């Protein structure tokens, strides 16, 4: 498979940095050259957190606007906001569960209805996989395993050459025992849902 530029976006605390690191490690374990790029610090205090994973043939650690092959959004509004990284052919995988920012709570702006958000995304790209990852994470027994659901959905989408088995081995290698079962279950639920949605 050729070069893959993946963008992860989420809200501080949703665990997208861990997800991108695990994807990078899984790639490396399969012998696929990978660079992961993260932003730490101020941006993590409840703000938007973006990370990138570049696989094969690229050394640049950032994705320019319009150049993402895959966008994995942990929150629908942030997926929409990050569409600037996408082109028509980008595979967009998004969680549908909204986390309204506090600016909305204090009346500075309105959170559009989620269906509208998804329609706005769908109208601009050819491949969107929208799943309620938050619900699947809860179903797996740990609301914090959303990042595993999303990695599962990525594996289920077939958009990279990283296999589900390899991804699960990597997850198992860096998860505390107490969370291992729920993490792997969350991954499987995400993978099955993405497979179901892509038919």
């Amino acid at each position: 498979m050729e070069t893959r530029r993946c963008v992860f976006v989420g809200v501080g605390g949703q665990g997208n940095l861990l997800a991108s690191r695990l994807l990078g490690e899984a790639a490396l374990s399969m012998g696929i050259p990978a660079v992961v790029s993260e932003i730490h610090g101020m941006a993590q205090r409840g703000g938007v957190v973006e990370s990138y994973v570049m696989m094969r043939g690229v050394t640049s650690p950032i994705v320019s606007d319009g150049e993402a092959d895959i966008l994995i959004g942990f929150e629908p509004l942030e997926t929409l906001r990050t569409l600037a990284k996408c082109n028509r052919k980008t595979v967009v995988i998004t969680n549908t569960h909204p986390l309204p920012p506090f600016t909305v709570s204090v009346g500075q702006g309105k959170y559009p209805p989620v269906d509208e958000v998804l329609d706005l995304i769908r109208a601009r790209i050819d491949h969107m996989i929208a799943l309620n990852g938050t619900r699947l994470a809860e179903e797996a027994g740990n609301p914090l395993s959303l990042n595993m659901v999303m990695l599962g959905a990525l594996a289920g989408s077939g958009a990279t050459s990283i296999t589900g088995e390899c991804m699960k081995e990597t997850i198992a290698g860096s998860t505390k025992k107490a969370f291992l079962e729920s993490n792997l279950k969350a991954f499987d639920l995400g993978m099955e849902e993405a497979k179901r949605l892509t038919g």
Partner: protein
Amino acid sequence: MHKLLVDSPGKEMLLLGNEAIARGALEAGLAFATCYPGTPSSEIPEQFFKISRETDLFFEYSTNEKVALEVGAGAAVSGLRTMVTMKHVGVNVAADPLMTLAYVGIKGGMVIVTADDPSLFSSQNEQDNRYYARLSGLPMLEPTSTQEMKEMTVAAFDLSEELDLPVMIRTTTRLNHIRGAVRLGELKPIKTKDTFKKNPSRFVTVPAVSRNLHKLLLERYDQAQEMAEKSIFNRIIGNGRWGIAASGVSMNYVSDAITDLGLSDKVSILKLGFSWPIPKGLCTRFLSQMDKVLVVEELEPVMENDLKVIAQENAITIPINGKGAGRLSRLFEYDPGMVREAVAEYFGVDYQAPEMVDLSDLPELPERPPNLCAGCPHRATYYAVKQVFGPDAIYPTDIGCYTLGLLPPISMADFVICMGSSVSSSCGFSRATDQEVVSFIGDSTFFHSGITGLIDGVHNNHRFTLVILDNGTTAMTGHQPHPGVDTGPMGVERTLISIEDVVRGCGVKDVHVVRPFKVKKTIGAVRAAKEYNGISVIISEEVCPLFAKAIGRKKRTRPFHVNSDKCKDHRDCINQLACPAMFLEGDRVSIDKNLCNGCSICAQICPENAILPLKE
């Protein structure tokens, strides 16, 4: 065992850029490390802090960057291999010792890491610290990948000892925070003690000594330049007549651009990793073989100007351009698309930018700025101060999480330029205006550089209130300890210094220690401070909830909920506190029980007492 202590030469690991630097230092036999943490440098010392508990490595979180460099200087002139790390603006704090340490030099290899922050992800400016190499006369290395971050660190120690000079490694945020494959080398044994040999004509910089030392520094500079000519980190890649000069992370964008545009036969790249002193011979050879040259470097046109000087000295008249080509500017970090476009435009190559999705007709999306966490004690302190001083007092603030007090509805940050400026600028504000002045500083920042300003305020009879937000950790940069922290739970023995004792020792007579989650009492203390004619200090003590959780010391608290029968929809809670655990459900305020930290501030300010703890 810490993962960076794996002794398996040849093994490949996925490492964070900052981990790669730490590993490089260990492979060079690092014995002594100091720092003041600061994004994007913080994960380097984080490794040393953990490793120092398992090995003979000495590591300390120093009070500030100047102290860190001076502590390091003592070790390095005694003969130990030493690393000092800081963010770019930290070098400003350390600039005083830096300039003269360059004169006296070192004995054990010393590497200073400056982590620059183009695009200001987590900083107050985006200064280009390549100028510090030029200002101090010290050699500088600029890695381009995780592998190079490790390799250059090892090489920097050897270089430092060959030249008897500290060597600077300059990174940028993108490099510090990428993860990439790193092939490990051998770990060197470390020398943890040596003997300081007295030599006043080298180490005591009175004018008569320094006159000689400056001359010596210039000789070493020439020697360093010769080494840069032969360095493996400096080379010309390719045989084409279109030249591109690059360093740092930009090198990756250039190399991807050449691949994407299919220009590898037409282009030659000048890659400068050992970038200062600039290898003039190599640069001249490069320039003399090119038809035109594009310089790709983030921030200032440093290399561009150097190359123009070299061209002039050698009567080379080809076009050399950097800033202004395409969208390449002095502002912010670059990206691959921007560099690809600039290369195509500069050399007149056909290029179609990828088609972006059209977002022009999107509805306005609500912003999501970073915010104080649920249960953050700073929110409570800000609330209490605002009840007494109102919106019109001047609120100088400082560098830390609490700078987020800038955002509405708190809106209590009026002036900040650097660490410690809250206190000292308040001295000026209180004299220059008749407005009331209340300044905010964090505990770590107070130790870093708030104390001298406080002494100034007391001594010169200024009048303002200083609020020290003591959350028991250096929160913003990732929960490092500071002199006021009990480090026992972190597994190291350090002597705790009481902030209150320091404040009283500085001569402050009106001192109030408050627990900000006790709203009424805190407001009472703020009132008393307001009445005082002179400098009053409020120390607001409550541990950072993220830190408490991280060290397993979080007290059990019950989350709160809004009782909809009692709630009369005043919305004081959400409008004045803007806690991220609160949201509107339909028209009414609701609390997310998974986010609520149980701090109870909202319950204390609700006029209807409608916010109550959830029953178990």
